[in-house]
């Protein structure tokens, strides 16, 4: 099924909606390897994903038809692949803005790109890129958002959903349309060079910004109380620990809940 009822310029103008698919990111990549090029802004949406992924090995569980799981195609050829974290910030900011409108100010971004409400996880994203030389050909942005699912397995202790928070269901088509229009808005800002505005907004919306919390250094097992102060252009998390700035890359630090 295809439709183009959305009002944006290009994000979501071409929507391919599927009942069940292994992963919408994989589907999009397979389509790209075929001859006909897909327009930027193409969205692949699935009611159910059998192998939707968090990271390379983590799979993400979703009750069919209840949540929003889709992949979006962008062609960020104007960004040097070495500077790619700015796209992660851009999409995070757009999603956060939509959720803030629906749920209020507790909507947050957990470094590097999880979608939070308070200390509950609403969703996440997986960005897969195709790079040739120094050219960023495609970005495939997979987004998974818990919308109308209210029960979660015990293993997902901090999972939450829009319906759990609002105590009422939210229309998936409307939500997708809102997300597409906000991604488009922030992506166009990125394209016209407003990187500082994106970084500032990303920082302001960071989960645990300026609050002391417990963390564990993965390598040594050492636990400490630190305060998130910033995330650099490269995506490095910066914490203040007793007056000293400490920088952490992904998989170097764990957020602890006490």
């Amino acid at each position, binding site marked *: 099924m295809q439709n183009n009822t959305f009002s944006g310029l290009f994000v979501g103008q071409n929507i391919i909606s599927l009942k069940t698919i292994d992963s919408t990111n994989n589907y999009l990549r397979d389509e790209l390897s075929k001859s006909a090029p897909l327009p930027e802004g193409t969205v692949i949406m699935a009611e159910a994903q059998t192998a939707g992924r968090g990271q390379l090995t983590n799979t993400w569980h979703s009750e069919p038809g209840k949540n929003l799981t889709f992949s979006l195609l962008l062609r960020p050829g104007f960004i040097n692949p070495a500077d*790619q974290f700015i796209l992660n910030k851009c999409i995070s900011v757009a999603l956060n803005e939509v959720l803030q409108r629906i749920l209020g100010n507790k909507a947050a971004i957990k470094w590097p790109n999880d979608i939070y409400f308070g200390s509950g996880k609403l969703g996440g994203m997986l960005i897969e*890129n195709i790079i040739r*030389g120094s050219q960023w050909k495609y970005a495939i942005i997979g987004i998974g958002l818990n919308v109308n699912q209210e029960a979660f397995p015990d293993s997902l202790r901090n999972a939450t959903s829009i319906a759990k928070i609002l105590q009422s269901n939210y229309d998936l088509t409307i939500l997708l349309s809102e997300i597409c229009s906000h991604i488009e808005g922030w992506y166009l800002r990125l394209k016209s060079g407003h990187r500082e505005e994106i970084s500032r907004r990303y920082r302001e919306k960071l989960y645990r910004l300026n609050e002391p919390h417990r963390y564990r250094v993965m390598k040594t097992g050492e636990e400490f109380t630190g305060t998130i102060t910033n995330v650099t252009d490269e995506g490095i998390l910066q914490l203040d620990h007793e007056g000293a700035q400490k920088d952490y890359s992904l998989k170097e630090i764990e957020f602890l809940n006490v």
Partner: protein
Amino acid sequence: MDIKQIQELIKFVSKSGVNEVAIEQENFKITIKTNQAPTYVQATVPQAPAYHAPAPATAPASPAAAAPAATAEEPTNLVTLKSPMIGTFYRSSGPDKPLFVNVGDEVKAGDVVCIIEAMKLFNEIEAEFSGRVVKVLVDNASPVEYDQPLFLIEPI
């Protein structure tokens, strides 16, 4: 300058006792260094496929100054494929998945040769031209720097 001339030049330099000779002509540059230890030969070859930045084709260093001629037998038109970003280098899309490329494989422009993960962004790196993989320069799951050579490829 052809292979034979390069071989003669290397012989000449190794006998001469000088440490380094650099010759630069139009579209051609060669540097021969003879420290007590190994001999390096670097040659920029104009017919290498067009990169955004011209990539120097680096012939592997010969093991010892005693056998300088061996260097010239290596293909001199190798091109390095470099990392476009800081990240972690992966040779397959998952622990139980086949390697994208092995030494000796032929790749076409557009074939995926590796993945570089950077801050949860997964980058499939495509070959820019057709060629044969001569050497994989980085171990699977190792960190890589921006511009770090990843593969040596012989264009075909």
